[in-house]
């Protein structure tokens, strides 16, 4: 009997170790899955989805004032007043599209994978004697990205749609960020600016 006693805890302990060895593996798997799925859930809405949940906020669609010709001139004025260059204008369809480039000073300084763009290099060379050198490089101030912003005002019928987007591009041409930029506040401001331009006032005065 006494000899047998130690055997009882021995069995569960075998099961225990296998369970314990499975635990880190499961954790690893879970962490791996989280890493692989990454930010897929955080990606933007699909503009081609079946239901147009990705569409414009309500404030970005408002009634058009004035006739088509008056409106188009007012729209062009507003787009220019906001600092965009007009790239497309079509009277029959009531489309005005503009784009602008805005420097993002300082953004380049924090964009690097290590927080800043200050780099070290350490070299050891052997060539007719030994030498040792340390180099410190800094490209913080050459690397500010540019924000490339576009706007479309579309009013082929009695309603105006305001569409805006933004792409942040670094000096190497790499697109750091690209997303629609349709916030209700600017749409309301654009609506007020259109009203001002139609009334013959300068849209720049509207805040």
């Amino acid at each position: 009997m006494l000899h047998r006693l130690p055997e009882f805890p021995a069995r569960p302990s075998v099961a225990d170790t296998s369970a314990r060895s499975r635990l880190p593996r499961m954790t690893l798997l879970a962490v791996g899955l989280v890493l692989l799925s990454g930010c897929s859930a955080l990606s933007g809405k699909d503009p081609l989805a079946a239901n147009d949940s990705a569409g414009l906020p309500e404030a970005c669609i408002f009634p058009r004032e004035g006739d088509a010709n008056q409106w188009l001139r007012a729209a062009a004025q507003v787009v220019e007043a906001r600092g965009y260059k007009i790239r497309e204008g079509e009277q029959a369809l009531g489309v005005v599209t503009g784009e602008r480039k805005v420097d993002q000073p300082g953004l380049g300084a924090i964009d690097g994978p290590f927080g800043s763009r200050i780099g070290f290099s350490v070299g050891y060379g052997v060539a007719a004697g030994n030498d040792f050198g340390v180099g410190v490089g800094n490209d913080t101030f050459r690397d500010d990205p540019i924000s490339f912003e576009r706007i479309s005002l579309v009013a082929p019928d009695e309603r105006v749609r305001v569409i805006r987007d933004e792409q942040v591009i670094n000096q190497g041409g790499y697109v750091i960020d690209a997303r629609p930029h349709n916030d209700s506040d600017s749409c309301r401001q654009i609506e007020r600016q259109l009203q001002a331009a139609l009334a013959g006032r300068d849209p720049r005065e509207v805040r």
Partner: protein
Amino acid sequence: MNMRKASPRSLWQRLGLATLLAGLLVLGGCMNQPTHAPDSRTAVIAPNSGTLTSQQVFVTLLTTLAERGFIIERADPDLERLDASYAARPPLALEAWVSEVNGQIRLSVSGDSNGADIAPGRLDNLLVEVAVALDARTVPVIGAP
């Protein structure tokens, strides 16, 4: 005896070969980037009642894209063609045009997402939304994607 002498050399050879192969694979990876044809969809927009003009279809296409958040890069009412794009990563660029063939109004959309596939259903969603807004239905065109 001979075999034992040869085996260390063949190990090095094998290692060299493996390195070469790996190198070729790495280099080949750059070469094999597929040139992806843009996905496109065409459908006849058939009215449920009455008649429909191609201009109505074109204007509805324009407003549908605008309300989905697309920037209208170019819109030509005479050619009934438009280019629109959506800022995202990867970006989504659409070309759409309306044509009249044998009295039927066809709406075509072609999309490019930096070479990535656009699932066929996603472009269909757009065609269907345009048709529904006009109280019409989409009829597939035989021989067109």
